[in-house]
């Protein structure tokens, strides 16, 4: 049996090649995503473990939570006496105070701005400090610095070079050594400046305080018991943790971005595999149809239905195995490319040796083989149902293949109608995003079932223009309409890809446009100063606000800060404002209460937040801050939703309240109103001069500020669109594949056409016409679905945020044009093959 299956599969390798390619691409995508994210995770784990390797306990100021949205919270520094108190605890071999913060390294007048953090640390020799000297010596006095070897090499910084380290204060320091981290030359996308403890305290304006105290336990001491003892000695104001746990928590925080990236990549891979599944089902179903006679002969010779079914599934298994094996290999190879791609779109992932876990192999093979075999299941069942008498029938090609059954059509129509109803409910008002998701699934499944029934009509309608092209055009249309099941499956696969592309495009554009609109309406400032680095909290040094505010060219400067807080388990964000100056650079509309009341320590909520939480002015909201724990803030006002959106969050507190509850002290934005009688250009120049000591700060006009806010969306959109192209590519392979197979099936007919005088050129146009027609069908269905569901999503979102549908006609037309052109391209190969058919062999085949 297996010998027969293998021989069959090999004999049909040409017909199965594109199927194999489709599965292979899907598996490559899955493997690549897993390898990439595993590698990044492993690197982060290693990095933090190395950092904590020589230490047993870490003592920090107590905090209600460690990190939020991937950002570690800042803690209050520890007073100097903590170290002394720890040293007095029996079992402590060493208690080393450590200072860590952020400091940019500047060399030759240029500031190095890495994609990742710029660390400033107090130097500690191993085993407490994770850095090891590669050249030179450790910093021994103020004015000396050791930097990581990777940064030194990249920026050609040698021993003896003078660099500027810019933290709370800036100082010129001489490089006396170069350090490596673990076995590496540094940390990925990071600059590291290591200075003496007092120098670090000075640069970070810590006075005599420390960031943390690292404890090494004496030999033979039980670390857990020591931890309790130290905690008891220090009291509840301090947090004593196993250093290993701290490292794990830090790694986990750093990994949150990777997790969402992984989710996104796997979702896209799933889309690609789904499209691949359509292609596989189609291929096997065509191959089974073409083999009807052969299968009937097998049945007549005594093969059971189950054996026939097994033989088809066996072929699928072989294809799946081959594709999974190749795809896994290719995926590992592509992981680095995927990282580069993510990097192009602003998602920086650490670089390092690839991690291929057994899990990756298992997932790749389960997915590859699973998708192939389950897609072939339907055709296999049909193969098993072939009756022995069919061997006697004249020709299987004569039977019009794939007329739709009644049950299937009705089910499809009902599901499609349900989906449309769900979408209308959402568009009309009450439905949620969940309803929309269900409607989408229902519609896609419904259309897949309904497809064969409606395809002939649609194809003839869409194919009207082809009639102008004479007989070849008409024949193209008719042959697409003739096998509705095949045509609809091929078109749906492409439609699905195109629907995702247009959905993303429309949704992204709508969100961006809505952001721009609410920003333009709300922010009346002439300029906004923001950090060019895309940091979660903004990352503008506090002194920028002061320098800018002091300029005579500036009438008003008002700053915003962002902070995270927790509501039970869920992490929320808030915006801190200056209630006195903010109204002068914005136009905010209160729904209830007053904005300036936040000065009294209360919170202003976005109207939709208040509604969702069932709060009104006068109620209190319990907010958990990392630094101060649970605080009950009175609700003092409600802000119009779109204004809140312009301020980025639905919770607004005063900067004073912020300062009481947060250690963070970076600004997100500084809004500037130019003084009367000063030209905007002059003011801008003055501000830029004032920003000389803040290398990452940028002066933005409104358009640039909006662009900065939309940069994240652009990045995600860009990456998603590029990766969705893979799905579209697989769908196009589907068109090529279906056409190539149907050409084999129609050899006799094509030969006849050539015999009675169809020229090669006419035949090529006929096949290409059919490809374009399938693409057109997919475009109509796909773009329609994509736009409709994007409209639904925008409507659902519109209930909580300012969101209006914007249909980017130009971009959608581009999608349509590219898809049509790609359809033409997909038909190129089959068309050439058809035109090259030897007329005589073709006639002989009939």
């Amino acid at each position: 049996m297996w010998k027969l299956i293998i021989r069959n599969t090999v004999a049909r390798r040409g017909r199965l090649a594109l199927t194999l390619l489709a599965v292979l691409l899907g598996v490559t995508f899955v493997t690549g995503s897993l390898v990439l994210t595993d590698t990044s995770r492993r690197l982060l784990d290693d990095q933090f473990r190395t950092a904590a390797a020589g230490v047993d306990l870490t003592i920090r100021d107590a905090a209600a939570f460690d990190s939020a949205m991937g950002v570690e919270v800042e803690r209050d520094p520890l007073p100097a006496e903590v170290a002394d108190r720890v040293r007095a605890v029996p079992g402590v071999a060493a208690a080393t105070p450590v200072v860590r913060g952020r400091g940019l390294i500047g060399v030759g007048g240029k500031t190095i701005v890495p994609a990742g953090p710029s660390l400033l640390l107090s130097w500690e020799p191993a085993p407490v400090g994770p850095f090891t000297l590669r050249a030179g010596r450790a910093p021994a006095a103020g004015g000396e610095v050791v930097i990581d070897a990777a940064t030194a090499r990249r920026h050609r910084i040698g021993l003896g070079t003078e660099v500027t380290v810019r933290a709370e204060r800036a100082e010129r320091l001489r490089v006396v050594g170069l350090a490596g981290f673990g076995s590496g030359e540094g940390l990925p996308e990071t600059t590291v400046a290591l200075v003496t403890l007092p120098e670090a305290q000075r640069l970070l304006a810590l006075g005599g305080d420390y960031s943390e105290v690292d404890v090494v336990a004496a030999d033979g001491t039980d670390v857990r018991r020591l931890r309790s003892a130290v905690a008891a000695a220090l009291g509840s104001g301090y947090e004593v943790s196993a250093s290993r746990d701290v490292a794990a928590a830090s790694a986990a925080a750093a990994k949150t971005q990777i997790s969402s990236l992984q989710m996104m990549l796997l979702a896209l891979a799933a889309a690609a595999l789904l499209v691949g599944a359509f292609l596989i089902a189609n291929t096997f179903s065509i191959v089974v149809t073409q083999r009807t006679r052969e299968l009937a002969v097998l049945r007549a010779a005594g093969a059971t239905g189950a054996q026939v079914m097994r033989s088809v599934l066996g072929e699928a298994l072989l294809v799946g195995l081959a594709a999974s094996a190749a795809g896994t290999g290719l995926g590992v190879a592509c992981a680095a490319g995927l990282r580069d791609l993510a990097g192009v779109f602003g998602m920086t992932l650490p670089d390092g040796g690839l991690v291929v876990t057994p899990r990756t192999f298992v997932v790749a093979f389960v997915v590859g083989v699973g998708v192939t075999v389950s897609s072939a299941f339907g055709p296999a069942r049909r193969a098993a149902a072939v009756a022995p008498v069919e061997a006697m029938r004249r020709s299987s090609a004569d039977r019009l293949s794939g007329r739709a059954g009644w049950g299937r059509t009705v089910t499809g129509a009902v599901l499609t109608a349900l989906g449309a109803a769900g979408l209308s409910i959402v568009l009309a008002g009450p439905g949620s995003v969940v309803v929309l998701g269900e409607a989408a699934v229902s519609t896609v499944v419904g259309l897949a079932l309904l497809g064969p029934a409606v395809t002939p009509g649609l194809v003839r309608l869409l194919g009207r223009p082809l009639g102008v092209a004479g007989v070849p055009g008409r024949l193209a249309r008719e042959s697409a309409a003739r096998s509705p099941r095949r045509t609809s499956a091929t078109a749906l696969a492409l439609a699905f890809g195109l629907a995702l592309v247009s959905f993303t495009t429309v949704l992204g554009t709508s969100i961006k446009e809505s952001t721009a609109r609410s920003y333009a309406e709300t922010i009346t400032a002439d300029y906004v100063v923001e950090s060019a680095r895309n940091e979660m909290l903004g990352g503008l040094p506090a002194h920028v606000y002061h320098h800018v505010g002091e300029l005579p060219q500036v009438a008003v400067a008002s700053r915003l800060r962002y902070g995270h807080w927790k509501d039970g388990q869920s992490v929320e964000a808030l915006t801190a404002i200056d209630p006195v100056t903010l109204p002068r650079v914005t136009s905010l509309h209160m729904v209830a209460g007053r904005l300036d009341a936040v000065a009294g320590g209360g919170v202003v909520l976005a109207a939709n937040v208040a509604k969702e939480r069932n709060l009104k002015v006068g109620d209190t909201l319990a907010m958990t801050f990392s630094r101060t724990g649970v605080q009950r803030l009175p609700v003092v006002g409600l802000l119009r939703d779109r204004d809140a959106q312009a301020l980025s969050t639905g919770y607004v507190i005063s900067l004073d309240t912020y300062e009481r509850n947060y250690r963070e002290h970076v600004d997100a934005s500084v809004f500037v109103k130019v003084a009367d009688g000063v030209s905007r250009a002059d003011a801008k120049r003055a501000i830029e001069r004032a920003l000389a000591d803040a290398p990452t700060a940028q002066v933005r006009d409104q358009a640039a500020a909006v662009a900065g806010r939309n940069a994240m969306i652009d990045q995600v959109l860009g990456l998603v669109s590029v990766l969705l192209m893979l799905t579209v590519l697989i769908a196009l392979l589907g068109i090529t594949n279906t056409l190539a197979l149907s050409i084999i099936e129609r050899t006799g007919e094509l030969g006849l056409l050539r015999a009675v005088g169809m020229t090669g050129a006419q035949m090529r146009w006929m096949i290409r016409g059919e490809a374009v027609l399938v693409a057109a069908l997919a475009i109509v269905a796909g773009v329609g679905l994509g736009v409709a569901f994007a409209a639904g999503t925008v409507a659902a979102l519109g209930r909580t945020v300012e969101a209006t549908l914007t249909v980017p006609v130009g971009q959608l037309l581009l999608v349509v044009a590219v898809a049509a052109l790609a359809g033409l391209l997909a038909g190129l190969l089959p068309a050439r093959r058809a035109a090259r058919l030897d007329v005589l062999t073709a006639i002989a085949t009939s």
Partner: protein
Amino acid sequence: MTITSVRTDVAALARDVVKIYGRGETAVRALDGATLSIPAGRFTAVMGPSGSGKSTLMHVMAGLDTVDEGQVLIGDTDLGRLSERQRTLLRRDHVGFVFQSFNLVPTLTAAENIVLPLTLAGRRADQAWIDEIVAMLGLGDRLRHRPAELSGGQQQRVAVARALAARPRIVFADEPTGNLDSRAGEALLGFLRHAAHELGQTIVMVTHDANAAAYADRVAHFADGRVVAVTGDEGK
């Protein structure tokens, strides 16, 4: 392309034609010095045993294939000098075909199949002429049907109509009755003879069946890749 015939009596000519399939050990001389002239306006049968090379002869004479040696003329056009594309256009405009089976494009109606060569050429059909052949073949009530809805005999009649539709210089039929029962076969042969005698259409039919050949005006006996004898009204 126009073909002007100097010798109106000869519609097509094969002279010393050799056609070899394959190479070396397995080479087959399908045609081995075949010579045949086809008089215009007559119904000629090429008869011989299976495998004797009849179909091959028809293919090279109709411009479906090229020869290895010798010369093939349709009118006075030497097919050997034509490119692949020119041969296609020649077939479209001047040659009609009836094959043993699968003569029709399944997606087109009978009427559309009949005018297929004309529409491929972008020419308008001569409606009076089409009506005449359709009436002769008794296809009037079948024109809107698709091939799958026609009987085997009807399908072959549609094929004959298509072969005649463009008023070709010559019609080739390869075992046109091979898949038909004897009654349908006889009817079809009657039509072919009628087309030659009443409409002046030059027809060449390849067959292994002596009964079928009996309908023709002339019979070229074929064996081992060459014409061994020609019998009939003006045998030479």
